[in-house]
């Protein structure tokens, strides 16, 4: 049982980190990123490929994070000048391009066969079950990222982000370089996703393009909306909740007379239903502020 909980906890921690990056973009700055998974993939593949290419693990990880941030910047430069929500379209396109490259460039990524056989942090020196260590490593990282993000969003820098979220015309009327802030946010949010990608690779020990389908992005969105957008604590709670809905419904198997194929389809419906019901009663998310919902522009 404890192994099972640790395994689930790992996924929760990784997705909480992944969603914190999205929350910085959407919850605080109002940027619609539908391709967050693309940066998760870049982080994971870069870490693994460089490590397999002989680089020390920590350099590979740093490179994964930096490269994810760099691609965040590349996607942002042409699109963030545009006012409307073109970013949403461009990012979803970008994440699919990333996935298709990973799927088709066999010489580099082994395509659909995926990659395995790479180092994991301190694996050689951990005397106990490695998953326990990875669990600890993930949650310490989560705590550090959470604290840094909290400092950021409560700073004058974060105040500018919120003003861009509310009305970017005001931000520029007050002398703020809106474009520069959006780029910074996209770099940071993508870098965080890249880091989550490295952790995901360590957890799975085997990565392939199927791990990086668009649905992963929307899991992050579900977490953000469940927990309360613009609330970092809410994101962590949201990650727990999504996994609770997701894994909790597995145990229904014991109580219903369906076979496992029927049950797995039914489960998805039940998860959807739970989300709908939850949103009806808590439209602002678990830790979101209700009074913010009614405030128009």
């Amino acid at each position, binding site marked *: 049982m404890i192994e099972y909980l640790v395994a689930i906890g790992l996924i929760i921690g990784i997705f909480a980190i992944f969603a914190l990056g999205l929350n910085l973009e959407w919850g605080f700055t109002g940027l619609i990123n539908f391709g967050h998974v693309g940066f998760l993939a870049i982080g994971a593949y870069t870490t693994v490929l460089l490590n397999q290419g002989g680089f020390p693990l920590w350099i590979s990880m740093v490179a994964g994070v930096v490269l994810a941030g760099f691609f965040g910047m590349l996607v942002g430069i042409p699109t963030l000048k545009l006012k409307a929500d073109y970013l949403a379209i461009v990012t979803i396109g970008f994440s699919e391009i990333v996935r298709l490259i990973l799927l088709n460039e066999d010489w580099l990524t082994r395509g659909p066969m995926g990659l395995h056989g790479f180092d994991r942090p301190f694996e050689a020196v951990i005397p106990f079950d490695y998953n326990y260590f990875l669990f600890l490593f993930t949650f310490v990282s989560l705590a550090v990222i959470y604290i840094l993000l909290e400092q*950021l969003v409560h*700073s*004058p820098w974060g*105040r500018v982000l919120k003003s861009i979220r509310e009305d970017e*015309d*005001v931000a520029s009327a007050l*002398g703020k*370089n809106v474009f520069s802030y959006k780029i*910074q946010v996209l770099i940071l949010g993508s870098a965080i996703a890249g880091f989550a990608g490295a952790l995901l690779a360590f957890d799975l020990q085997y990565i392939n393009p199927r791990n990086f389908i668009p649905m992963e992005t929307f899991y992050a969105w579900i977490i953000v909306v469940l927990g309360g957008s613009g609330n970092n604590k809410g994101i962590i709670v949201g990650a727990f909740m999504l996994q609770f809905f997701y894994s909790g419904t597995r145990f229904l198997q014991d109580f219903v007379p369906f076979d496992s194929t029927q049950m797995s389809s039914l489960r998805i419906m039940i998860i959807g239903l739970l989300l709908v019901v939850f949103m009806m009663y808590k439209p602002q998310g678990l830790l979101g502020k209700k009074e913010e919902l009614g405030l128009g*522009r």
Partner: protein
Amino acid sequence: MEHSILEVKEVKKQFQSILAVDECSLSVRKQAITGLIGANGAGKTTLFNLITGYYKADSGQILFNDTRIDDMPTFKRARIGMVRTFQITKALSRMTVLDNMMLGPKGQSGEKIWNIWLKSGKVSKEEDMAKEKALEILDFFDMLHMKDEYAGALSGGQKKLLEMARSLMIDPIMLLLDEPFAGVNPTLAKKLVVYIKELREKGMTFLIIEHDIPLITKVSDTLSFMSQGKIILEGTPEEVKKDPRVLDAYLGGGD
């Protein structure tokens, strides 16, 4: 035209078939309060948008303090001291009144990401100063008791006031106000008139769009009347408001 701070020279802006601003020229004297009046659709707000960089002019020049600013992005125009408010108020709804205010000051160290950790002392000192100033201005605008409210929860008139108060946080050289008195109660509007004049004495320049002719007459040194994308009349408020074209536009709105 000595000591003009803002020079608009034959600026033109066309939206598809509508010529919103038609080779319009306008000169605003330093430390003066200039009123900009005209019927709806005359091009006043478009002219504001051109001056502040929200639109790019098709042709013509705009000079601020003898520097050409036509190609300067909006945020840079704000940084060199030209700050505006909006006709349809833009309160930052899901931010508190105080946060709205504290966004104002320019050159805040804490707006650079690394300084949050590298210069945390300086950042928090600046925050304290900004807060003090914000509370002072809010107090003047009778809004001190609302400092922790969400800006989105304010009434229309209060949002107008907040916008103007927020602009003052930047210490602008020139303030462009788009209908600052619309929806503000008469007592406070009169107080604002006095305050604007006080700020002018301290050296600030104002360009104000306003439909309330008695109020704009009272506050302005000169009035410019705009019609079909052009300034067609300039002069003292008394002269301008007696002009038949102005009377016509306002249908007896000038007394």
